[in-house]
């Protein structure tokens, strides 16, 4: 048996960054990267955007050759890890017990499903390359598309489908869209963006059944309304992939619970990306993010800490995500709960919103529509615990205003 080195479970963004982080910290021992999917590690954000609207090619994060040759990684695609035993320091892959010295859990998340609604063909979720391929061929000019859930992925998909000439209706059970991501005030405000893209969003619409024998025909709402549908996208959030960790003894609470260094509570075991719930020192609280940038940042930290070439470092993150609605870019930094949200410029409907979130006398969040320069600079200010008044003045002077 070969000597135990770094084992990374999950070959997505966080997994790739973990491998890179380990190598960059000077680790020269064996590295194994295992991924359930057969594609080389690829980028997910384009799947709801250019992959659909421009038939863009799959964007690979790092090719298999580059992982094998440049980073000397034993890349094992199409292999699913089924268990972890921290006492023997092994993971189970098929019939093999693979030993590790350091382990990074980077199994990401999967699209949540609605019980009993995924039977007929034409009902989709959007998480993987395969999902996007299926949707790309299903949506045609004139298709009747029903999106269940007005979250970011549902909204992006709705805009992309509408751009392709489909007739799109979005159903949202809550009274306001996007509340969890941006809070109630800005959720309401961003609802104006759906209007800007000509998309019919029905809030407070509870789906009761998806009807069709072999193929979907209609969607029935709790109030009795029936909507004809050729394509249904269920976009009701993502769940961390942790089933395989049952019996490992790790604490799982909507994600793998980690400390500030991303350690999962067992020696040498770290987690990163959508699957990790860690103590974020920047906000002194536990959080789990489903954002590209933090998955990348956490991956680097987890990989480095897992190979233990130095003191473990903490993972300090100011959350950041973006969402592209064909031509409009929404960006959010910080955390959505606050004492007050102040609109500094514009509105979502006119495509030039900039708003700041205040907690006490600090700026703790910001949201912008097509305000790229301002938002990322505010991210730095939030990380530096900048004073509220200073942030407001900065935002006022940097905001782009549309005529």
């Amino acid at each position, binding site marked *: 048996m070969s000597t135990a080195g770094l084992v990374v479970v999950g070959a997505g963004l966080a997994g790739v*960054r973990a491998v*890179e982080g380990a190598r*960059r910290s000077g680790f020269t021992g064996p590295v194994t990267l295992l991924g359930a999917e057969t594609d080389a590690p690829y980028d997910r*954000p384009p799947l709801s955007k250019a992959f659909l609207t421009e038939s863009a090619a799959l*964007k690979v*994060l790092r090719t298999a050759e580059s992982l094998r040759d440049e980073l000397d990684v034993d890349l094992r695609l199409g292999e699913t890890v089924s268990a972890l035993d921290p006492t023997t320091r092994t993971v189970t892959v098929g019939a093999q017990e693979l030993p590790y010295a350091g382990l990074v859990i980077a199994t990401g998340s999967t699209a949540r499903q609605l019980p009993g609604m995924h039977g007929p063909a034409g009902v989709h979720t959007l998480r993987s390359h395969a999902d996007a391929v299926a949707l790309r061929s299903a949506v045609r000019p004139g298709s009747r598309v029903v999106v269940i859930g007005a979250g970011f992925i549902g909204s992006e998909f709705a805009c992309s489908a509408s751009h392709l000439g489909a007739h799109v209706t979005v159903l949202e059970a809550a009274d306001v869209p996007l509340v969890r991501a941006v809070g109630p005030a800005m959720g309401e405000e961003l609802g104006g963006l759906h209007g800007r893209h000509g998309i019919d969003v029905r809030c407070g619409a509870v789906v009761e059944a998806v009807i069709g024998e072999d193929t979907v025909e209609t969607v029935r709402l709790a109030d009795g309304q029936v909507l004809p549908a050729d394509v249904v996208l269920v976009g009701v959030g993502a769940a961390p992939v942790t089933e395989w960790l049952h019996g490992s003894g790790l604490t799982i609470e909507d994600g793998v619970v980690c400390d500030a260094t991303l350690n999962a509570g067992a020696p040498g075991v770290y987690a990163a990306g959508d699957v990790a719930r860690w103590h974020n020192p920047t906000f002194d609280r536990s959080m789990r993010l489903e954002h*590209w*940038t933090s998955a*990348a*940042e956490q991956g*680097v930290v987890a990989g480095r800490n897992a190979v233990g070439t130095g003191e473990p470092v903490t993972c300090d993150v100011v959350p*950041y995500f*973006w969402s592209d609605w064909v031509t409009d*870019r929404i*960006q959010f930094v910080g955390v959505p709960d606050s004492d007050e949200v102040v609109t500094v410029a514009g509105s979502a409907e006119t495509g030039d919103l900039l708003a700041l979130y205040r907690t006490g006398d600090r700026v703790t969040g910001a949201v912008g529509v097509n305000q*790229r*320069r301002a*938002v*990322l*600079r505010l*991210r*730095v200010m939030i990380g530096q615990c900048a004073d509220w008044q200073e942030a407001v003045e900065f935002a006022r002077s940097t905001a782009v205003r549309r005529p």
Partner: protein
Amino acid sequence: MEVRIDTVACVGHGVCEALAPHIFEVDDQDKARLVAETLEEEDRGDLENAVNQCPEQALRLLG
């Protein structure tokens, strides 16, 4: 050491500027550009971070 910005791929997230404001800036066209006149060896860590965290893979570090 040299850093290349692919201005076609860059869409102005500004992650690079947030990580290394003394090296990168997002201009009015929403494209990153270099503000540092020369790159020092001590900038390598910041540069590698920016290269890895650019969501569009628009940055490359040579040398």
